[in-house]
């Protein structure tokens, strides 16, 4: 869980993890391999999934095709996903298999972008502000989905500025501010620490 305000550096952190932004320095290790010099597709194929903040659905492609783009061979240490299994998780998507991504609502797109990433059978996924711009009902649904994914054994790194949402799903939290980690601790500790919340997350 990465917490922090707009522009604090959460999205950039996530983009450098998946290789879309080249870090100036530092090391990124994933599944025991150094990945900071690899291309995004190589990192993704190691089992790291990325769900961008802007969703970036392929609007010309329908739901099934969007899932097809994300498909990768199954992995030993990760849950295996098929479109049918994903439609159990996201029943809405199952009802609109042939609908182009461009003609879906924001919430449906957010579901699809997560489902698409899961098609790569990742062992860990990066979720960049999944609650952004969504209605409260959908946010709750999103939280349930993320808890479901955790039960499947998936490691989830979440970036959020919505503390309520974060409290629903996260175990541990890092607070990012001006590109640096300012706080780390368990979600329960953070919830109890008014001073820290006031300093970094007050709105």
């Amino acid at each position, binding site marked *: 869980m990465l917490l922090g305000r707009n522009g604090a550096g959460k999205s950039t952190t996530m983009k450098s993890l998946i*290789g*879309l932004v080249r870090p100036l320095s530092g090391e990124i290790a994933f599944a025991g391999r150094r990945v900071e010099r690899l291309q995004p*597709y190589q990192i993704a194929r190691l089992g790291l999934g990325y769900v*961008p903040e802007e969703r*970036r659905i392929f609007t*010309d492609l329908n739901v099934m*095709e969007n899932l*097809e*783009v994300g498909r990768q061979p199954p992995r030993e240490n990760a849950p295996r996903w098929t479109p049918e299994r994903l439609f159990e998780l996201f029943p809405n998507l199952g009802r609109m298999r042939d609908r182009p991504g461009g003609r879906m609502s924001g919430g449906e797109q957010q579901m699809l972008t997560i489902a698409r990433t899961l098609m790569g059978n990742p062992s860990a996924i990066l979720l960049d502000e999944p609650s952004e711009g969504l209605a409260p009902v959908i946010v709750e649904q999103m939280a349930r989905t993320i808890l479901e994914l955790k039960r499947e054994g998936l490691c989830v790194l979440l970036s959020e500025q919505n503390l309520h949402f974060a409290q629903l799903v996260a175990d541990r939290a890092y607070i990012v501010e001006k590109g640096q980690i300012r706080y780390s601790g368990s979600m329960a500790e953070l919830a109890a620490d008014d001073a820290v919340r006031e300093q970094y997350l007050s709105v």
Partner: protein
Amino acid sequence: MTASAILIQFLNGLASASSLFMVAAGLSLIFGVTRIVNFAHGSLYMLGLYLSYSLFELLGGGPLGFWGGVIAAALIVAVFGALVEVLLLRRIYHAPELLQLLATFALGLIVKDVALWVWGPEDLLGPRAPGLAGAVEIAGRRFPEYDLFLIAIGPLVLGALWLLLTRTRWGTLVRAATEDREMAGALGVNQRWLFTGVFALGSLLAGLGGALQLPREPAQLFLDLSVISDAFVVVVVGGLGSIGGAFLAALLIAEIKSFCIGLGDVTLFGAVFSFSKLTLVVEFIVMAVVLVLRPWGLLGRAPAVARSSGAVEPPLVLPSPKLRLAGLAMLAALVLLPAVFSGYTLILMIDIMIFALFSVSLFFIMGPGGMHSFGHAAYFGLGAYGAGLLALKGGVPMELALALGPLCAAIGALAFGWFCVRLSGVYLAMLTLAFSQIAWSIVFQWDAFTGGSNGLVGIWPAAWLASKEAYYYLALSGCGLGVFALWRILYSPFGYALRAGRDSPLRADAIGIDVRTLQWAGFTLAGLAAGLAGALYAFSKGSISPETLSVPRSVDGLVMVLLGGIQSLTGPVWGAIVFTWLQDVVAREIDYWRAVLGAIILLLVLAFPGGLAGALGRLATRLSGGKAAPGAAT
């Protein structure tokens, strides 16, 4: 026209549309995924045609020689395309898009000379297609069987492409990458091989389009440029990246052309109007109309995000005293030059100065104005023809003609510019190309007035300017003042407003700047300056031909600006010097000068992605002990 004639013309149009569609579809596919505008696409078509000619003979003629040759030629072109992608384009995917364009253009130059070396300069007419050599009778007229075959192959290729793109995993990935290649990468799609595959497929289509024309048109060396401009038009009319749009546009244009030929000379309101001569421009007229009505083409959509064109430009710095001194010293050297050199050197210097002004005027709208023009030669040519016609046919004294010629160009720029500033990016570039092609065809076909393809001869300067020395000083003052004025304007509030409109149209609009009107004014100013260069050119040569406003001349200008570097004021001047000098030296010494030029451009692009001025700037920085030099000084 009778009903049967209309039917035949319609079928003719369908037959011509097929090859056009294949080339355009390839171009569109490649652009969609790699975002590279492949200027060498016409060369691939030409290569396909030449290869099928040779393979027919190599395979011993007959059905095997023909059909085997056509397929083998397309496959060879596909392999060639894949090699080009792996060896060249992979290195420049992150370069500014204009530099990519320059690289593919250079590649086209090399292919042309290789074709000249292998197949020679003569037109090569291929055999008739075995089995389809005859004709069938349709509505009382004979129609070639092979053309019927071509009519069928267009929709077949369209269908095959559609199946490939919608029914296979590869096609789905291609469409995903067309929309957002970065995201596709983050989902584990290896773009490298996807790009290579798309480039090979696009090349295959171009090669096949060329090879299938074997029985219909001779293999010729000028095909590369004529095909690429046709294909550009089709892609732009149809909408960038839209295969269906390309098919529709190819049909539309081929049909209109076919009917123009069919109509021939028609008497309208008592005057004879030649529709068949209209074929040279009709596609560009169609494009201009479509772009004004539907700015993103028939089936195209507005591009989602404008791609940044590389590094952020550093702020403009007023020249330091040292630089000013250097500039004055250079000027003094130019003034004293005729005392030392004479004859040919002076002629070359006059050319260089004229093209420096031309290049700076193009830079003016492309760099600070942010409007990429592929047809800037139109204004050079309008200036040249305006001055020439006034002097020859209008009886205007040379001095006055020299002053009025640029005005003709400015009026042309005013008229064309009104349309152009309504578009941006590749679409704007294509519209400028269309207008220059229209201007070219008018000059080319209006024999009685412009002298047609022969051009105008006997445009001589006034007696007191007749000597090479005198004309040198005229050119020096004209070009010097022109270049200086354009530079000076860039430092003025107008120049700042122009850059403001390019940097952030949103912000410019929000602080009261009317970006379109401003760009229009900038476009006209650049036209005026290019016209001055053209007028000076006309009187320096004594004769002009439609070459002065042709597409290759526009491309020359682009090469000069891009060679010099688009982020520096002096860049376009250096580019003009190097390019004009290279062209002169190389063309005189070497038969295959185009290939050498192409190779040099390729090396420069690969070595200095920031242009010559940027490289010189860095070198100067290193030599002067690492002190930071302003990138955009002088």
